[in-house]
């Protein structure tokens, strides 16, 4: 029976697998436990010599090992560091989803990822770019800069023939990839989509670039307290890295194969601020409409949302405008949702941030726990939101929302519902 892409009724979309790699740990469990403990593993950068750069700290992934046998040596040569994190996260998510060959038509299984820009570093420039040895280097070094490589490897890894999509809208990249994956299933274009994001901008060019924009914290002497979203003393973000991958699935398929459902995705909003490339519109144009769109998409009343994982970068302008936007949509009264930014614990994972933060929302729903707001020494009165406590807190949650706000003006909001 051919599928009608114009069918008006949406299908229900559920999450059946999550995998993560972050500075808190190389799997979702360690990452989640790190968040519950309120850990902030930021430290002096070791990936490159940042000793004379304005920002010398980051949330680095350390002690990472890619399990053997996942990909071939040939495939490994096509992947940069962030992509390898992505492979590990996909393997973890697929293991949890327990999707075995034959349960889904490969042509109805797709890949949709948000990817960072995998930029070059000084070493590469010194060896290749400056001496113009363009024809000299090995295939490996060139091709690792192609952001679409990971989707290709993931498709082979999971047996997907339903098409590969790679998205980049800066910090909104994986929020957008999750949203498009959700819509692909909701509107019947795919039955399962492996989605998420991967990024690592802990390199000299990227960090210096953000330094030049004045976007990064300079609290080099207190790295674990440098990322402080919504605190009055915040002075910029701290770079993170890693990957987070999720398996989105048609509810009917998940039910039929007896999959363990972790949460339901029930709303996606995406807008453009059309204001400035780095600044947010002072009245929140863009983020406000994205959140409203996501609520409307799933028919979710704002009052039902109990937790918002904010984009919350720890820059002055983002946190102020995002908080005002949340207040506009959800109000500021006693029923307003609790808000936190977990970037204080993961760092800013850029293109992977949206996926990681939706995964945290899902775990908050599953385990009925509000993630802590750490490093808030004095909440900025210009950020009128009800922040979560400084420690993880048991709660009753039915719906959670994750925001992503990207350089370039793309804004996304995703709503997840507790699965009972």
């Amino acid at each position, binding site marked *: 029976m051919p599928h009608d892409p114009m069918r008006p009724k949406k299908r229900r979309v559920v999450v059946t697998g999550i995998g993560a790699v972050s500075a808190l740990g190389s799997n979702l469990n360690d990452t989640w436990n790190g968040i519950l403990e309120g850990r902030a593993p930021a430290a002096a950068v070791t990936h490159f010599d940042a000793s004379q*750069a304005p920002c010398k700290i980051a949330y680095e992934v350390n002690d990472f090992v890619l399990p053997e046998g996942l990909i071939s040596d040939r495939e490994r040569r096509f992947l940069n560091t962030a992509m390898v994190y992505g492979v590990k996260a996909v393997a973890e998510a697929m293991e949890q989803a327990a999707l075995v060959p034959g349960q889904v038509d490969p042509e109805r299984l797709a890949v949709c990822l948000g990817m960072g820009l995998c930029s070059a570093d000084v070493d590469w420039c010194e060896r290749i770019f400056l001496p113009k040895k363009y024809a000299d280097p090995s295939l490996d070094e060139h091709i690792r800069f192609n952001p679409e490589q990971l989707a290709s490897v993931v498709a082979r890894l999971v047996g997907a023939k339903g098409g*590969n999509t790679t998205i980049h809208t800066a910090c909104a990249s994986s929020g957008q990839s999750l949203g498009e994956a959700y819509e692909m299933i909701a509107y019947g274009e795919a039955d399962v989509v492996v989605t998420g994001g991967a990024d690592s901008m802990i390199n000299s060019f990227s960090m210096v670039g953000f330094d030049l924009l004045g976007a990064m914290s300079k609290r080099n002497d207190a790295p674990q307290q440098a990322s402080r979203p919504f605190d009055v003393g915040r002075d910029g973000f701290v770079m993170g890295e890693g990957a987070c991958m999720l398996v989105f699935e048609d509810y009917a398929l998940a039910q039929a194969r007896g999959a363990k459902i972790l949460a339901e995705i029930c709303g996606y909003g995406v807008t453009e601020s*059309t204001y400035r490339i780095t600044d947010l519109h002072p009245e929140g144009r863009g983020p406000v409409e994205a959140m409203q769109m996501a609520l409307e998409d799933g028919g979710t009343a704002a009052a039902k949302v109990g937790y918002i994982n904010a984009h919350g970068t720890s820059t002055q302008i983002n946190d102020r405008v995002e908080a005002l936007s949340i207040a506009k949509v959800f109000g500021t009264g006693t029923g307003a949702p609790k808000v936190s930014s977990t970037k204080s614990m993961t760092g800013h994972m850029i293109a992977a941030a949206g996926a990681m933060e939706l995964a945290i929302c899902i775990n908050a729903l599953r385990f009925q726990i509000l993630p802590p707001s750490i490093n808030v020494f004095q909440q900025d009165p210009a950020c009128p939101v009800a922040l979560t406590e400084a420690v993880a807190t048991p709660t009753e949650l039915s719906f959670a929302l994750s925001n992503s706000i990207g350089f370039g003006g793309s804004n996304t909001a995703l709503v997840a519902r507790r699965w009972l």
Partner: protein
Amino acid sequence: MTQRADELVITGVGVASAGAYGLEAHWELLRQGTVKANAAAYSMRDFKAAAHLKEPRLLKAVSATDAIGLAALADVQRTGAWTADAYPAPRTGLYTGSPGPSSFDLCPYIEAMEAARDGDGSIDEGAFGRTAMSARPTTLLASLANNVLCYGSMMFNAQGPNSNYISGELSGHLAVQHAAKRLRRQQLDYVVAGGFGAHSEAIDTGMYTHLSLLLAEGSESTHTVMPYAGGEDARRGMVLADGAAFVALERRGAATARGAKILATYIGGGIASDGLGPLRSDPEGVAYSRMILRTLTQADVDPTQIALILANASGIDALDSVEINALQRVFGGLGAAYEPPALGVTTRVFGNLMEASGIIELGLVSRLFAHGELPAVMTAPASVGFSNRLPSRTPAASYALVLKASPWGEYSCILLRREDL
């Protein structure tokens, strides 16, 4: 042919390439059979984007590649009779296909890297962290892959749903397909979609040479790709071309009401992957052919109704072979009386426009129907089993397929219906 007010139509096309600016000029290149002398002729390094923009200030913090994209968007505004008050901003969207990072983006750091050289001449990365602070504050911004999405949205006051795809050759097609879905679902009223890229620079050329995907420079007087040449010609591979191409999509009823010229009807699209990993394709073209059939089935269009195929036709031998095998699977068994569709090739003239490829073709479909046959430079060898003339057997045969394929085993198609121009 019944036309519905809610069907999607193409009402504007913007194109900038090394050969020309604007759809009409590109049609002339095809009609006249203009081909380039060498690979360098596909470069837009000297392109003056500012001359095409109403607000050249938009170019202040973007790369040269982005500027090409913005110039093409300005062309959409011009040819599509776009006006700021035609649609509400939240109901207007922009979907772009863009390249990843470019070596152009590194140029602002060159001075800082040179200043960071130590006594033995090597670059001290630690010192670079200091010397780079003298670079322009907006250096990072010029390298963002979503700059055209950002500034293009400002040009169109497009505050609705949007996205930016970095999926290589398929990027522009993905943008158009996702944009069309948003229109179909009534989430947007007007959307501009397409792609842009500039890969003729030395680093990308080096990479594709390493991958054995590029046509080698030879002693021939022209540097023309030879799609489907098979064993008859040793010069096989693609030519990288810089360029940008976008289309405007809206619903027919609204387009007609505002007096916009309709260039074609957008019927549907599809994507697929062989799932074999980087640089590996299924030589039989199974996933490719099934994607085409799925797209036709979903649109209730029979393969016999396809009169025109505008192929990917990269010039890469293995990939072209996959394409022909896929097309034979779809069109090869339709009986002796079946008159095959015309198979058109634009790469001899345009080169491989990468992220922008497969978009100009969307604007040329109806013109080719009106022309009745393919210009000589667009024809495929007779050996592949398709025609150079558009069959006119029934009014129902009014459909065209525009195909994209990448050496990564990834495929896309867009199905259009002709419009009487």
